[in-house]
């Protein structure tokens, strides 16, 4: 069953012709932005440089740093009046990247999500509980619009408040949920506490797992606890948000919607393209966006194209679940964190050194972050109260920056091993 059969099962040759036409249009649109306009002039490139899809390689990559440097409007390709929505990749001030949508962008994005959800079996008759953060984060509103597009009854539950989530699920007989995988595991402990068996006492049959990379084992565990089918979802705000790639009922890789995105996989070191089936960094060009189209955007997500044809009949290629990052970004409870953010904050506090260690743990299905910080020898005055105040201050500062509350441990100067060159700043103890 397809949401748009002609698009989802399009002949590859026709798809590539479509992509080529869309790519030329996209380049013409991006030229109107401050950033690309200047870049194209400097490099003497334009839509005319494109004769085949491979010609995209004549264009430079776009990175998150480029977006930051031209914050906020440097990538806008339409008059500002045409924009109807902004989103942000993370809520912090210093490291935030913003994206903008026109009315048409929102409509196309909603349709992509409707396509994803319909593919897994969700229908108009379903009750959809969206357990994601609404607001600047794209995950909440993206799915909300997609589910309404299908015509399902949407419960905009938002994130957290576990008991209320369960109450809503029971009262309104939720059949489909959208949830962060680590939260799904945490929520199962609340079910146990309330002596409610999610397998018997709820009607949920489909879950969308998003905002956080997770293993196949973790997915199977969630499916087992809840007795529903869990589907992996991939997206990033720079390419709308969720709805970029999604699992079909085969649950074997995520179809990446090639009518909306031109996909490349590159070697993150040499930046050269790798063959289908080989692992590398996902690079994407938006093919339909108007507000803020991006060319060759480096996602920093590591994956590979799964070779072969999917038995579901969809011709759009599949990517494997995300293996990791080519940069040092961490994802905790669906929140993106760069170690650099922590370093920057610590540098503003004189009483501590800038040598720090991030430890990620998972206990009782609950993820946590500990930041070990070295006390600065010069500022130690033999006073435990002063240290307590310092620790509280660091916790507050980091909470303000990261939007999650880390546990802060003060440690002795020079007790954290300094790495050769690039220090090892992160220990991830999170297992399935």
């Amino acid at each position: 069953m397809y949401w748009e059969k002609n698009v989802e099962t399009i002949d590859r040759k026709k798809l590539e012709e479509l992509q080529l036409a869309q790519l030329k249009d996209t380049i013409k649109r991006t030229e109107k932005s401050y950033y690309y306009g200047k870049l194209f002039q400097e490099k003497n490139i334009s839509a005319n440089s494109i004769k085949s899809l491979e010609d995209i390689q004549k264009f430079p990559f776009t990175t998150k740093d480029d977006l930051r440097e031209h914050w906020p409007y440097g990538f806008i390709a339409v008059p500002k009046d045409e924009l109807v929505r902004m989103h942000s990749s993370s809520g912090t001030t210093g490291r935030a990247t913003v994206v903008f949508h026109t009315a048409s962008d929102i409509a196309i994005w909603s349709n992509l999500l409707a396509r994803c959800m319909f593919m897994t079996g969700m229908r108009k008759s379903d009750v959809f509980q969206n357990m994601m953060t609404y607001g600047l984060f794209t995950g909440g509103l993206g799915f909300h619009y997609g589910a309404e597009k299908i015509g399902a009854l949407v419960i905009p539950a938002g994130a957290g408040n576990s008991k209320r989530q369960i109450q809503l699920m029971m009262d309104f007989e939720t059949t489909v949920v959208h949830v962060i995988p680590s939260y799904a595991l945490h929520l199962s402990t609340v079910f146990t506490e309330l002596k409610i068996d999610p397998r018997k006492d709820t009607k949920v049959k489909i879950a969308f797992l998003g905002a956080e990379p997770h293993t196949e084992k973790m997915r199977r565990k969630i499916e087992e606890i809840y007795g529903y089918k869990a589907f992996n979802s991939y997206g990033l705000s720079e390419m709308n948000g969720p709805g970029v790639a999604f699992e079909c009922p085969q649950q074997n890789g995520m179809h990446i919607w090639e009518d909306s995105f031109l996909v490349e996989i590159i070697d993150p070191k040499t930046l050269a393209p790798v063959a289908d089936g080989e692992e590398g960094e996902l690079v994407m060009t938006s093919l339909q966006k108007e507000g803020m189209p991006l060319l060759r955007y480096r996602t920093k997500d590591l994956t590979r194209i799964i070779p072969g044809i999917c038995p579901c009949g969809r011709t759009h290629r599949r990517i494997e679940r995300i293996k990791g990052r080519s940069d040092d970004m961490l994802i905790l409870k669906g929140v993106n964190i760069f170690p650099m953010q922590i370093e920057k904050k610590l540098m503003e506090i004189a009483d501590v050194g800038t040598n720090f260690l991030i430890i990620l743990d998972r206990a009782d299905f609950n993820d946590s972050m500990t930041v070990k910080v070295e006390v600065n020898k010069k500022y130690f005055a033999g006073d435990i109260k002063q240290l307590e105040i310092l620790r509280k201050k660091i916790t507050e500062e980091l909470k303000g920056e990261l939007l999650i509350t880390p546990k802060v441990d003060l440690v002795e100067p020079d007790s954290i091993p300094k790495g050769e060159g690039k220090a090892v700043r992160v220990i991830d103890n999170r297992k399935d």
Partner: protein
Amino acid sequence: MIAYQISIFAENKPGKIAHLTSVLGKEKINIRATTISTADTFGVINLIVDDPKRAETVLTQAGLTVHLRSVLAVLIDDKPGGLDNLMQLLYQEGININNAYGFVLESSKKAVFVVDVDQTEKTEKLLEENGFQTLDTQALSSIEPTHNVK
């Protein structure tokens, strides 16, 4: 007279205190009194030693985070009300005590009470005006403590 307390920053890990005492033992530095304040994963160890300046040097060389702090070592009578007299005086004068601990001198029926206050010099003057005797490092070195009281 002003005395000195050595404060050491320490994570709550096994062997921390043993490391400290072995460094001081090797250097033949005597510990007169100790207190430890902790805040779950870390703490501060306070020591009164017979040679605080040298202790600071050797502990720093051993890689520890050390702070030398001036404190008042007040001689009080080891009898009911002895400590109370001192405390009442500090309270009445509005002097904030960060930390306080003591040890008894059995031979002389006296006790030494170490008080760590914000305004050391002002407090010292006040104590002496009120008949309390304060000891300096040298005086502390020449007395033999028996046991600690907290």
